């Protein structure tokens, strides 16, 4: 593997536990000319707001940004499907010269009349700022004319990283929060935040909390509805998953409405159970019996899944895995999940981890584990081969790399159609890992042939 060199300027974003001092460089912009697996500001906003199913999502810019994001995510809605449409102002050369404002106003007008959404989000893409379109004014005017919230999302692709896109999305939502009536909201109430209802995961989580006797006011933004977001400030607690994406909104709500928040993860038995217990803990004074209910729930669910997981563990024990995900927080859960299956994580990384995230990661990992920030296919493949992994957990962009090298793969990104959260999701995860790691097709991989 000597032929693979690490780019100058990226050495500090790669760390092998035990071998070096730990001072991870991260939260940097991707290096020009490296093949980052990251996306852009627009992408960040789009993923957060995407699952709001009764809102219109209009992308103001040339066609690409809309085309590439048309119904590619597994975020389900129990009702309206408007979020699965792809709307674009499809700016042309003359719009770049003369401005796209008229086009945007007219598009909004027609689309709102046609689809009758409960709100509209207008995404600014790269060139919108440059050509000087005043989308705030246009949105305001449309809002007044149509009588629904029309919210600008300042997601010009180049103005930061994906994280800035998260923030822009939170800013837009913050304009909705607090505008609805909270008179029916009880004291044992939460918002589920950072949960996008991929393959119906929010429904599963919501069901757990409801069985504990808790009212879920709003899910941000899985199976999202404008009305629920408007009244979400009535909830007593914000339960935040996917720390990066919605933390701004949670902080905003803490400051503005005094709503406290806790951070959780729903992946794996350990973290899922903790997510329930932490909420129970929060409400145990208001509702003394909640802890018992939670214990009963956890016991019941674990009892169902444990024997099945044991079977998979027998097949997977001792195999090595690599993890590369968007947010680092998810990586923590995944390491535990893979350990539940008897597997060792030998490579872990994220696109957007913070220094603290990487510290936690380091503490969790065994000696020898490689930790990477904002990696590229060359680096990921290099360490996967060196470490001899049988499984790579990542997103669509990592998939072909894994397959090329004869490595099993599990899609843990938002394009997946498989529910991985909650207790049942752990079974799905185990089954998915098992299906890929033990498939007989790998016997034909040239790397295997050479090894044998």
């Amino acid at each position, binding site marked *: 593997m000597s032929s693979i060199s690490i780019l100058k300027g990226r050495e500090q974003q790669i760390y092998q536990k035990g071998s070096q001092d730990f001072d991870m460089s991260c939260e940097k912009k991707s290096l020009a000319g490296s093949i980052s697996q990251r996306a852009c500001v627009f992408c960040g906003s789009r993923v957060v707001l995407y699952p709001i199913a009764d809102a219109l999502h209009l992308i103001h810019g040339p066609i690409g940004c809309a085309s590439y994001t048309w119904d590619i995510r597994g975020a389900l809605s129990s009702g309206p499907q408007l979020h699965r449409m792809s709307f674009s102002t499809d700016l042309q050369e003359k719009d770049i010269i003369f401005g796209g404002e008229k086009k945007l106003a007219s598009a909004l007008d027609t689309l709102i009349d046609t689809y009758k959404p409960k709100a509209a989000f207008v995404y600014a893409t790269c060139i919108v700022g440059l050509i000087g379109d005043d989308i705030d004014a246009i949105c305001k005017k449309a809002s007044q004319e149509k009588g629904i919230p029309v919210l600008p999302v300042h997601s010009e692709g180049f103005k930061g990283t994906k994280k800035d896109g998260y923030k822009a999305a939170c800013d837009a939502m913050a304009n909705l929060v607090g505008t609805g009536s909270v008179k029916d909201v009880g004291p044992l109430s939460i918002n589920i935040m950072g949960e996008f209802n991929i393959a119906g995961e929010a429904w599963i989580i919501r069901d757990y909390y409801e069985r504990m006797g808790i009212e879920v006011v709003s899910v941000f933004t899985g199976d999202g509805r404008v009305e629920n977001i408007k009244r979400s400030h009535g909830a007593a607690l914000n339960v935040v998953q996917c720390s990066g994406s919605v933390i701004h909104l949670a902080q905003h709500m803490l400051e503005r409405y005094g709503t406290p928040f806790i951070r959780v993860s729903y992946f794996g038995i350990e973290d899922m159970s903790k997510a329930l217990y932490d909420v129970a803990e929060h409400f145990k004074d208001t509702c003394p019996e909640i802890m018992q209910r939670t214990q009963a729930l956890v016991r019941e669910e674990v009892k169902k899944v444990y024997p099945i997981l044991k079977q998979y563990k027998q097949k997977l024990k001792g195999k090595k895995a690599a993890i590369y995900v968007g947010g680092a927080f998810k990586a923590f859960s995944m390491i535990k999940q893979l350990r539940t299956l008897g597997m060792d994580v030998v490579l872990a990384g994220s696109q957007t981890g913070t220094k603290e995230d990487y510290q936690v990661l380091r503490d969790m990992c065994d000696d020898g584990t490689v930790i990477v920030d904002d990696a590229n296919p*060359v680096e990921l493949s290099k360490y996967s081969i060196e470490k001899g992994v049988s499984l790579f957990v990542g997103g669509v962009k990592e998939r072909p790399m894994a397959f090329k090298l004869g490595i099993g793969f599990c899609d843990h990104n938002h394009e997946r159609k498989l529910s991985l959260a909650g207790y049942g999701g752990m079974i799905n995860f185990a089954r998915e890992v098992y299906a890929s790691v033990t498939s007989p097709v790998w016997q034909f991989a040239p790397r295997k042939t050479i090894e044998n």
Partner: protein
Amino acid sequence: MKTQEKVEYKATSNACKLCSPLGASLVFRGIENTVPLLHGSQGCSTYIRRYLISHFNEPVDIASSNFTEETAVFGGGANLKLAIDNLIQQYRPALIGIGTTCLSETIGDDVESIVKSYARNNADGNRPAIVSVSTPSYSGTHVDGFHAAVKATVDALAEKQDRPDAGINFFPGMLSPADYRHFQEIFDDFGIPCNMLPDYSQTLDGPMWTQYHKIPQGGAPVKRITAMGDALASIELGRVLSETKSAGKLLSEKFGIPNYGIGMPIGIKETDVLFDCLAASTGRPIPEKYHQERARLIDAYADGHKYVFEARAVVYGEEDLVIGITSFLSEIGVVPALCASGGKSGHLEAKLRQVVADFDEKQIQVMEGVDFVEIGKAARKVNPDFLIGNSKGYKIAREMQKPLIRIGFPIHDRMGGARIVHVGYRGAQQLFDTITNTIIASKQDSSAVGYFYM
């Protein structure tokens, strides 16, 4: 007044097109030892990579110059140069293919001068060639980006060197790796060298590896592109393309190389044109193998003609693909009731008239520059038996409960999009069998009787 505005500025809903940097990236991916580099923000290359990966199931590394806010203010020159440096360090490419984006175009970066200035300051025999092409997302579609990149590459590299045996330049347009392999096989059987550009037959449909290849093997060799200035002739596929300032025309103007602008060879008639063209330009006979394939195909047409006769189809996708498919459908007796494209060349209907007999009698509806919401509305009205096009029509097919025959790009909901052969007698055979059997299956499955003998 307001009504008029609505008509003028309507939103595009579920676009039937992609942006031009995607097309350029695809072309650069089809040149040997080349890295595509998009001059813009990180999202462009990441979105395009993911979109291409989901079709080809292959690694698709596309670099980005990774604009920041400062870049937008002070110009992208420094970023672009840094990107080139980094690419050279990590990939050691023979060529870097740069496509612009709406962002770099809008701030007015002059990529050509940046590249020139870079080259001046880095004069070194081992430096890769650099080709740049203007592909702002707000201008045209992915097809325009594709053709622009082909032309820019040829313009930058092709030379007259008086090489003997320089073969034939071949510009296949945007087709599948399997199509490209089939073209290569045809040229091999003719015994004539083929300078095909692009050629992602291996780079986007390759074998597994023992270690990661930063750049996949295969692709059009740079020296074959250079040699294009000496070729016997150029053949360029696409009836709409032939209306543009194309690579073939460029070579004709620059070096006097005869250019054959013909249709995509889909179906017997358009494939015959290609073979006749190859025979004429090389002076060699059509290899026996293709006579046999053609003869068996005609025999199959006869066997299946009644199942498909006057079946009604909705065809959509890139304009030249639509024309090729429509030509094929017409020759087997299917009525191409609706032909639609997100592209907007202004030539679609005229070109369709060239390939469809009794165009008016068949009451064919042609739509340019439309999106899937518009296609869906029109499709319902023509009451089709099936739709034929890329995966993105699945939603309307599903709503109409009509079968969708998947061809072209992207195929995101089936495996093997890269392996579809659209062209040649072989491609027509597969399309014919698929269409016939789709119709038979619909009939069989919806029948209360359930025969196994059709």
